[in-house]
């Protein structure tokens, strides 16, 4: 950011901050008034496939809390606006939330790009800010009052790939060569940087390392080039359309590495899973949630999913809600627990409590560490197994997305090599 812009930010922030402080005269006088939580959310645009389910999860939490009598005896109210997946709308939305709507707490919208423009605002106004699935947003700012719910852990760059390469290194016969490929876009590039680091760490040999433009239509030439290298490991960092394209091309070209997958976004979505069906078999891919016994053991998750799935159709969102929604719910759950425990809406008190405490949530125990990321990363590696046909119901229960990593959440064994699980 240019210094001039920073100065402008500082000035605007300062003026607005002073106004807010002036208005904070008598907070206790509003005891019966609702606690207002504000946020922008991607309800249209590129990220809305995740933004809308995230909103539903937050709404379910609000209803749950209000059923139990609210927070600090006050009902909870959500104030949200559509950020259109456009980072440029974020400053305006949050300024309105804080100055016009006078919300008590704010959380971020969904995704790295929408959290980035919120960081300077949060820092100017000394807000405690909950981040929803941002990758390394706080790496440069190191703002102490930022807390992020995606379980990437302290080293976000390698978080996607670590489980994949750890698993690969453990197999016998041990794979030797690696092909990595990804889209020319922010997340895939980050994941590839992490993958390169891990390849070095585990002593594999890279035989293919390329990127492609996100608007590529046909992936068979890429897959054919990878096939020609005969790589044992194929690591793909892709967004949904390319994930589907790569997977289909892999089947058409007859790609047979020993282990295949890694960082393919989209395979987690119900609409994609139910379209790809058996083509998923054998793919080892990152995930955040799977309906396996080890993941269903956390308190409250079954009730949440039941409610989510009941409301999903009406809301027109992912019918299963296994990827992001549990974490969106956990995010506000954490915030709510902090408010209850500190009996306060004071931003600094909340931040201090959030930093120091381990929370029990629907996604398990959450403890924040360096830069407000999870103290210990917990990105899952799952393998699709025994998928038959394209029915949705098979994905509701365990056994189709077997958790292989991390060890403490493992729910089954890997089928290795890839070709053994493919059919």
């Amino acid at each position, binding site marked *: 950011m240019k210094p001039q812009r920073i100065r402008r930010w500082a000035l605007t922030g300062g003026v607005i901050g002073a106004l807010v402080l002036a208005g904070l005269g008598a907070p206790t006088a509003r005891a019966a008034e609702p606690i207002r939580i504000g946020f922008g959310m991607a309800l*249209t645009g590129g990220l809305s496939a995740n933004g809308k389910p995230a909103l539903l999860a937050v709404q379910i939490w609000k209803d749950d809390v209000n059923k139990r009598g609210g927070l600090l005896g006050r009902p909870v109210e959500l104030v949200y606006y559509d950020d259109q997946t456009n980072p440029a709308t974020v400053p305006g939305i949050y300024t309105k939330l804080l100055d016009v709507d006078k919300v008590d707490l704010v959380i971020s919208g969904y995704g790295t790009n929408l959290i980035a423009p919120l960081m300077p605002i949060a820092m100017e106004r000394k807000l405690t800010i909950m981040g929803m699935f941002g990758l390394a947003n706080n790496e440069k700012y190191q703002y102490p009052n930022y807390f992020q719910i995606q379980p990437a852990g302290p080293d976000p760059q390698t978080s996607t790939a670590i489980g994949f390469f750890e698993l690969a290194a453990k197999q016998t016969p041990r794979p030797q060569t690696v092909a990595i490929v990804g889209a020319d876009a922010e997340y895939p590039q980050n994941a590839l940087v992490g993958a390169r680091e891990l390849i070095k760490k585990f002593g594999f040999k890279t035989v293919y390392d390329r990127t*492609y433009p996100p*608007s590529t239509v046909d992936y068979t*030439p890429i897959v054919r080039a990878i096939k020609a290298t005969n790589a044992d490991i194929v690591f793909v960092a892709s967004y949904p359309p390319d994930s*589907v394209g790569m997977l289909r091309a892999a089947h*058409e070209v*007859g790609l047979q590495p020993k282990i295949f997958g890694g960082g393919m976004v989209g395979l987690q979505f119900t609409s994609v899973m139910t*379209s790809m*069906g058996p083509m998923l078999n054998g793919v080892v891919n990152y995930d955040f949630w799977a309906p396996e016994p080890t993941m269903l053991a956390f308190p409250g998750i079954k009730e949440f999913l039941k409610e989510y799935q009941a409301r999903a159709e009406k809301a*027109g969102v992912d019918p299963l809600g296994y990827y992001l929604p549990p974490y969106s719910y956990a995010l506000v759950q954490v915030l709510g627990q902090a408010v209850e425990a500190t009996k306060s809406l004071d931003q600094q008190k909340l931040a201090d409590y959030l930093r120091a405490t381990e929370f029990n949530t629907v996604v398990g125990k959450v403890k924040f560490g360096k830069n407000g990321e999870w103290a210990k990363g917990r990105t899952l590696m799952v393998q699709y197994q025994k998928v038959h046909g394209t029915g949705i119901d098979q994905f509701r229960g365990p056994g189709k997305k077997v958790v292989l990593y991390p060890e403490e959440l493992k729910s089954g064994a890997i089928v290795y090599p890839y070709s053994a699980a493919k059919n």
Partner: protein
Amino acid sequence: MVAGLLLGGFYAAVSLGVSLIFGLLDIANIAQPAFVILGSYAAYVMNRSFGLDAILTGLLFTPVFYVLGAVVYRLYYESFERRGEESLRGLVFFFGVLFIIEVSLSLKYGVDYRLVEAAYIGKSIDLGGVGIAFRLLVPCLVGLAMTLALHLFLSRTFYGRAVMAVSQDRLALRLMGADPVRIKTIAFGVGIAAASLAGALLITIAPVVPSTDRDYIGRMFAITVLGGMGSIAGTLVAAVILGVAESLMSTFFGPSWSLAVSFGILLVALAVRPAGLLGR
């Protein structure tokens, strides 16, 4: 190489509508890709609800799209063309149409990636050591058939020749006793009807969201211009050149260069032959 040819056939199918409407009628219909996506969703809905094949749906829906196209053109004509305000305001009009289609699809079907199922998706045949994916082969063949059909329509039928005439000399056509507006309505309708099929092909190849259209705007217009405005055969040639260039680059030099090279070809071609490859 083969993959590029297949891709080219598909690109041709997608670009035919633009070639007809933009190339021949000189209407900057930038909403064309949105109509293609509308075709994709029609295919998706029929595939999900009735198990109908995507491409069959595309074919069945061509009359519906034809009518839709005719209505859109009439609206455009009444509001802009008749008053001689077609250039810039017309562009804005079609931008509006593009957004309306996109947002309507988002509201109705959400923004999840949509795919169709067909027996041939994910399978391939081996021809002389080269695996050819049916998912690409079928759209390519349909694309070729569409090109041929459109070519025959324009060169052999009365209405087709009238369309060619309206693109060349409107006044002369009127003097011959034909109504240029009616002819243009027909041509516009045919162009949009082509989008129905193209959309079905698109969703057969790759998953679709309402905003997928934006990936195709550039390619569609590039192919039309490269091929020569209004030349159907040129569209096919240009589509194949772009497809082959993209595929070869992806295979041998790294996929990140593929688009740059495709558009590089366009620039060079325009510098050497400003009318396009087969343009007049």
